[in-house]
């Protein structure tokens, strides 16, 4: 049994100090909902675990100058319950609603969900559809922002350096006329891992029933959550009706066919995405 050191920094200064000791074998614990399972299964043998949960500096949800900031150790439950998030980043609140079980939501953190970079991570498509940027700190105490897409390097892989940790995420507030939602499909109604997840964030003009801008992101149908850029362009200026819904579903199906060609799950996912698309439209436009 090799020795394992656990550090629990109380603030960002201590966190930077802790990161000085990090090696490629070290792990950072956000909520532990994935890490502890890997530890129990002996799938990882870290030399050092930096437990983020005592660093209360990183527990916040706030709005400043039109941007929303969420600290890394903010739990999924806290985000789900936040009025600010429900009003100005509803797709993230919805993603948090469908995230794991109550127990998992109480423990899991947004920082952990980002850094863990699971292809099926529920907050990731929502954050992609919000153009989120990830705040990272290094062992010298220097902070920098990275676009979320640059952090997600592949299935359960992030691009951070060994001496870096996610300390937060920011995105611009998407108040009305932005409206957004999140829909997902799993094998059961709750406590389920996404097989397809979809975040839809659009500028909707009620008066003309028109979509004026769109940010669409998909999860669990590729190595990391990604944006469907072409489809976003095609939605702009379109009137919301059944034809648009059908076209939206059809186009998403094409996106999936391009994303996971030859994958065993493709025949199912390219059809089932249509149901997820319809669900999103129902939630956004009551149709």
């Amino acid at each position, binding site marked *: 049994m090799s020795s394992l050191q656990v550090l629990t920094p109380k603030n960002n200064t201590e966190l930077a100090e802790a990161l000085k000791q990090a090696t490629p074998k070290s792990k950072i614990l956000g909520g532990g909902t994935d890490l502890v399972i890997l530890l129990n299964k002996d799938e990882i043998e870290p030399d050092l675990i930096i437990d983020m949960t005592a660093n209360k500096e990183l527990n916040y949800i706030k709005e400043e100058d039109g941007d929303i900031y969420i600290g890394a150790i903010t739990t999924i439950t806290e985000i789900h319950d936040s009025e600010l998030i429900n009003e100005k980043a509803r797709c993230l609140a919805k993603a948090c609603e469908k995230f794991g079980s109550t127990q998992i939501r109480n423990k899991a953190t947004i920082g952990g969900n980002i850094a863990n970079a699971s292809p099926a991570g529920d907050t990731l498509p929502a954050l992609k559809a919000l153009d989120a940027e990830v705040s990272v700190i290094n062992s010298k105490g220097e902070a920098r922002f990275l676009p979320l897409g640059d952090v997600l390097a592949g299935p359960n892989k992030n691009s951070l350096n060994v001496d870096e940790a996610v300390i937060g995420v920011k995105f611009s507030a998407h108040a009305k006329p932005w409206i957004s939602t999140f829909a997902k499909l799993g094998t*059961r109604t709750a406590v*389920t891992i996404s097989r397809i997840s979809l975040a839809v964030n659009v500028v909707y003009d009620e008066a003309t029933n028109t979509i004026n801008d769109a940010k669409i992101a998909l999860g669990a149908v590729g190595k990391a959550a990604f944006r469907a850029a072409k489809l976003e362009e095609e939605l702009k200026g379109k009137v919301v009706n059944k034809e648009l819904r059908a076209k939206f579903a059809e186009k998403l199906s094409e996106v999936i066919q391009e994303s996971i060609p030859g994958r065993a799950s493709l025949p199912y996912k390219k059809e089932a995405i249509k*149901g997820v698309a319809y669900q999103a439209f129902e939630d956004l436009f009551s149709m």
Partner: protein
Amino acid sequence: MPVNKYDVLGKRLDKIEARQKATGKLKFTGDLKFPGMLHCKILRSPHAHAIVKSIDTSEAFKVDGVVDVITYEDVPKILSMHQFLHVPEVMYYDSYLLEKHVRHVGDRVAAVAATTEEAAKEALKKIKVEYEILPAAITAEDALKPDAAQIHEEAKRGDKPVELKGNVLDTCDVTIGDVDKGFADADYVIERTYRTSKPNNGQLERTAVVCVPRDDGRLDVYATSQGIHAMRMNISHSLGIPASKLNCHRMYLGGTFGAHIHTGFIENICAFLALRTGRPVRGEKTREEMFLSCGRHPMIVKVKAGFTKDGKLLALHSDVTDDTGSYAFSGSSKMALTAGFTLSMYKCPNLRITGRSVYTNTPPLTAMRGAGNPQAHWAVENMMEEAAEDLGIDPIELRRMNLLQVGDRFFGQGPQVISTIRSSGNDQLLEKGKKLIGWDEKRNNHIPYPDKPWIRRGVGMARGFHTSGCGSEKPNAFIIDHSCATLKMNEDGTAQLMNAAADLGAGTLSAHASLVAEVIGLKYEDVIVNLGDSDSAPFDGPTHASRGLYGAGQPVVKAAEEVKQILLEWAARMFQCGPEDVEIKESKVFKHNEPENYIPVADVVRKGHFSGWGAAASTASVRPKACPPHFIAIFVEVEVNTLTGQVKVVNAVSGVDTGTVVNLNNVEGQMVGGLHMGMGYALIEDTIFDRKTGEPKNASFAGFHILTVKDMPDPDNIDLVIADTFEPTGPLGAKGIGEGVTNPVAPAVANAIYNAVGVRINDLPMTQEKLLAKIKEVEAKMDDLAMTQKNVKETVRE
């Protein structure tokens, strides 16, 4: 809920241990700790099929805290059985505690005992094993191929060696009547092949055991076991020690669903290590180990049925291919039961069953709620629905006209276990279920939301049964079914029951307490049930086959009647009257019609005991003479999303014919739980193994999903129907309930899906993928049809 004449039965009573459980005070096996206790961990094979070429434990011994390490070279060379259920001639032996020839990923290679669990785990990593990897057969089809590697070289049935050719361990072929003539006379014959999946029991409490050496040289065994005597026989055989050397303790269980009917050998291994080291040894399986040591047998069931044009069943032939996994934990009984149970679904003069039980290089499969019967129901109840459609008869009507009736012969555990049906609530269940689900209104109304035509609804039903125990009119040549109970009165007026039947969490012991209270006339809370052990409790079979109340309850009633007689005689002496002049109610004894002039039962016991009149105690022993079917009818309404293949059960009716209701809470708990488990079997539950390597793909609750409460219909949309019946052979008229409530659920869901979207999936589970693929197939055909019709019209126009 039927009205009854009872004081205690039929009411909603707390389980006797409910408060201990709710407050966390009750000790389950895994909670037990003893001074000097060692922890056992088992080294498991990473290969599905291999021979251990060499094994080196020297480094493992060097780990701090390691006390003992054993391999196949150290364990007794005794070919052993896993469960002790069947009569000695049928009992099946095919395993050693640790194996040189490993037969599935997770098979037992070596075991460590250490002062901490961590040290034991560390030692496992230090054991060096060299394997010679053999080709593996992961499915029954692969194992049956002529060139498949042979998985077992030796096995015994009773004391006779089994001649193993290939991987078939047993076959069956039984005919009743003249099947050929039956099919020849039939106007309509249907033949279908159905497949079932391999769900894991998934019970909350994992297998746990602590074996504690005693000062007298014997061993106390505390374990998650469905039968202390069966476990004692099993361990004593595999270790080659006398049964009396072991004292197996009855423990409360956190659910089993059959996972603890056998010993998974961790119990035997811990006993062996405790005897070797002289120290208490504790073992507890991880969840992954649970997934690698139990589950329901997947079956291929071919059904051929012949009907008259009016729908009367004339002939039925069921052919079963049973995948038993790498060890035959229950011999070939699941093959015999699945095939045999198909014979008991409906009245049919000409019957035949054929089958084969096959070894594969997958974890050993076991009993799981229904013991072969969910598989039988899946085949027969899907087939009946298709037959009804072809014959143009309402599916409920087709079933009604072919029902077994009171007085008919009933095969309770296959054709060897014969009894006569003496109670049936079938008609009540079908009538009430049909009304409550809204059958007539809903069968042809599929679009609940006009603006969302991709959501379709449908209703369906299936019916069936499970046996209550394994009793038969004559002692049978298949399975042990016998129960005993000792009851004594205490000097404070409480009654104390000592028996051995396990309470799997379903409330069996509380039901026994209710029977005692009802028979004698005591308050429910005045009955104490000892957990006890095999040292003090007389022999009983394990709790399985829904026999905990029906079978094990019979000697409880008999003993209570005998104790009551003693109390009445003593009270009569005190009242100076005849025993027929007094009665007991709510723990008080009084002369008929003079309840105000009573003597507390406590005073009667004291008077008797202190005056030397004797002891108010009795031991009763009963061999149940029947295994009455508890009949079940399940009706469900489903919503199918034709875009995603998702199925939601929105309404359900569970109807049971369980005879006298002993405790309404427990009966309803079984009904809802059975519905939930059956829905999971229908829709999602399956354990997956790589077809080549046999590696488990989803051996955890993250990968193997069980439906959650949110997948259940809203509680207001579940109707529970209990038929008003009385089983003359049962304890105070009661029958079983635990397994029947699951059996017909999966086909009921299948039939509702068919009603909703016209799609039938014959192999379980009916996953979103399978459904959506079939729905698309049907839609494509409809499009083709529409196109053809359009073309035809256009051609005509031209």
